[in-house]
């Protein structure tokens, strides 16, 4: 089966299996930097938005970045305009700009907040699917939503009836048993699982010995997390039947192929887009080449 044939991700038809990881590509800012070339050469088969929260967030104080030998740590803190301005400003602009389906990533600090966000997008035709970022504490229970199977079940049971759109649950790797969380999400009606989010890490300022990042800790991404991503996708794919969006350190077609062979249906490019905004297109091209030159057959 040729990889550049359309891929079905819970009912959304994608031209190829490479999309972006949430928070690693801002199509509106990229339009300012690259003009019309962005839409003409759009590198992903779907566009996943940065996380939208109910209230506006300024994000963490700088510095927000730390470079590693094979990746980086970010402590961005989910800055965004909040739901209201996302709906009135960004959504119309994205709709006019994107040549591919839009997936909106949302995060709430309580189940009620997530429910409000899901409801707000439920009837929006321009939104193909929602991705639920559960890498945050539930302020009502104090537990990380995505770290506990019970938390994820409760969340999905509440929000699943609110929309017919696919709900993709983005799991945190900072959990004891990620496969158990994925199974709970599937049982409660998740349409797909995406993983991995960044792995918690930190850096010290070599001069002062104090934490370098304004947010103290941050998330590790890039090639440094690739092996961890592979292991988690492999494990989750054996625990659930719903599709998996695999991501973590993808820099090449071979890296993407590894995740697909481990059970992902679609892969997402994240940090590599920082080094080259066209990285997603290069990965997709290399992947097609690998598929054409081998007897690779792994899509289900």
């Amino acid at each position, binding site marked *: 089966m040729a990889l550049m044939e359309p891929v079905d991700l819970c009912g959304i038809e994608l031209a190829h299996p490479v999309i972006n990881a949430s928070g690693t590509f801002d199509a509106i800012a990229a339009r300012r930097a690259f003009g019309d070339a962005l839409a003409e050469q759009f590198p992903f088969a779907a566009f996943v938005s940065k996380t939208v929260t109910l209230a506006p967030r300024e994000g963490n*104080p700088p510095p927000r970045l730390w470079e590693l030998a094979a990746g980086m740590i970010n402590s961005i803190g989910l800055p965004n305009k909040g739901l209201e301005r996302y709906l009135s400003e960004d959504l119309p602009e994205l709709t006019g700009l994107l040549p591919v389906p839009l997936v909106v990533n949302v995060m709430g600090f309580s189940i009620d907040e997530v429910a409000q966000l899901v409801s707000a997008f439920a009837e929006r035709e321009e939104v193909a699917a929602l991705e639920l970022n559960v890498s945050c504490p539930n302020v009502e229970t104090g537990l990380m939503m995505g770290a506990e199977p019970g938390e994820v079940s409760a969340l999905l049971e509440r929000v699943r009836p609110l929309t017919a759109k696919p709900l993709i649950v983005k799991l945190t790797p900072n959990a004891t048993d990620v496969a158990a969380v994925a199974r709970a999400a599937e049982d409660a009606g998740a349409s797909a699982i995406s993983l991995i989010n960044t792995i918690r890490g930190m850096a010290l300022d070599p001069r002062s010995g104090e934490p370098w990042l304004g947010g103290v800790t941050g998330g590790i991404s890039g090639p440094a997390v690739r092996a961890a991503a592979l292991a988690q996708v492999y494990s989750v794919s054996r625990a659930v039947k719903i599709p998996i969006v695999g991501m973590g350190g993808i820099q090449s077609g071979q890296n993407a192929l590894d995740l697909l062979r481990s059970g992902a249906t679609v892969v997402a490019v994240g940090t590599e887009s920082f080094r080259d905004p066209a990285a997603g297109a290069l990965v997709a091209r290399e992947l097609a080449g690998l598929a054409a030159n081998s007897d690779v057959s792994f899509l289900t």
Partner: protein
Amino acid sequence: MSERTVAPFGRRAARVLDRRRCGSYVVLRCADPEGPRPQGGQFYMLTAAERWGGGAGERPFLPRAFSVLRARTGPGGTELEFLLEDVGPGTKRLCELGPGDELLLLGPLGAGFEPPAAGRRPLLVGGGVGIAPLAIWQDELGAATPALLGFRDAARAKGAALLHAAVVATDDGSIGHHGLVTELLEAELDSSPAAVVYTCGPPPMLEAVRALCAERSTEAQLALESGMACGFGACFGCVVPTRTGLVRLCIEGPVIDASRLETAIVAGAGH
């Protein structure tokens, strides 16, 4: 606001044509045949095509942001010059490049300098490797545009030759005025107050220039620096504080009008 020059999508290879030393600095000239002519103050993300991450497992991993020093457009397309100082693993690797080597570049990016309003005299104030965007801006404004440049020592002050008729200050007094470039600026504003100051340099210098201009109600445009991963608004890592909150320097800047700033000190800059 001027319309910014947009970058071709995706990074592209650029052949190094020439590498020359300029005191403590290195000037790299490279061919960018398909690229547009950048505006003064715009920047590029640079990566060495070979031995940049993924090799021995050492940094650098991310590209490095550089304001363009100078641009020429000829029959062979655009040629770009960058001013480098070896201060860390990324700049070290870039400083090693020579003729025939390849850079990967993305750009031009960001918003550059805005021309002065009628009746306002442009004045360039730079420090150290931060003089780079002032050279291309002087090319656009005219060689007679006065430039006040501060350096740590004589080896770095050789960089002053990259601008026309620069007046120099050094911290150690080895060349020019013994002291800070802001002392030169103060004298200049005393004699000719109707100026627009264009400035780039290390954060403490920029902050001193900003504060002095604010005190004199002199218009100023600051080319700031901040650690960047991407350069095109994707990572949200390069935010700087403004009167209206944190903004992404790569998209809103790197040139920011002083009226938007309470300080030119950016956490993590110069790392």
